[in-house]
């Protein structure tokens, strides 16, 4: 899975993107977030307002119960502020 982070999530995690193999027991976006938070402080800080975060899988917005699979492009970002 290729994961992208944007805006202040990117800053807190210290990475714009990373490749990871789908961890055991991670089948949904929600479970992926749990797994990422457990990796360390930067991730925990990035996902602290979990309800406010938006997730995209293969460049479409998805709810957190959406499945994730190897080969997916997954993105996490704060509420958008374009326009």
């Amino acid at each position: 899975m290729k994961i992208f982070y944007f805006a202040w999530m990117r800053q807190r995690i210290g990475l714009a993107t990373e490749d990871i193999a789908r961890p055991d027991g991670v089948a949904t976006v929600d479970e992926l977030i749990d797994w990422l938070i457990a990796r360390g402080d930067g991730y925990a800080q990035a996902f602290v307002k979990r309800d406010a975060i938006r997730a995209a899988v293969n460049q479409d917005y998805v709810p957190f119960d959406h499945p994730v699979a190897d080969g997916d492009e997954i993105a996490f970002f704060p509420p958008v502020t374009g326009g």
Partner: protein
Amino acid sequence: MIRVQEEDFDTGAEIAALTADNTAIGGVATFTGLVRDMAPVDGSDRPISAMTLEHYPGMTEKKLAEIEAEANRRWPLDASLIIHRYGRLEPGDRIVLVACASAHRQAAFDACEFLMDWLKTDAPFWKLEDTDAGGVWVETRKTDATAAARWNEPAGGE
């Protein structure tokens, strides 16, 4: 047509190109968004010296194309255009242009407002403002969500 670009655009030339060779078009509604020199930070307005627009290359273009298609489904448009810039911008700089051409004035206005409302709530862009208190990520405004929600009303509610 959609474009996501770092460089500035020429509003007049863009509108002219949109309507060229189609004399069925009765009018063009546009909105140009500009970088403001002040921004609310923790409840009070602070001067900003610059703004950096980050976006999600790939998803941005995909979502812009989808919403432009949706506007064309909802209203009888002869042509439409969304240009959104990214990168470093200064106060007064153009950020975004939305233009909708139609034989029908209200359709052009409605589609233009719909696209702007949508850009505010669903286009994957993030604004980082340089204020005298440092870099501040712009927060979502509740009014933007309210504005966008009006387009979800049942048919006939508009």
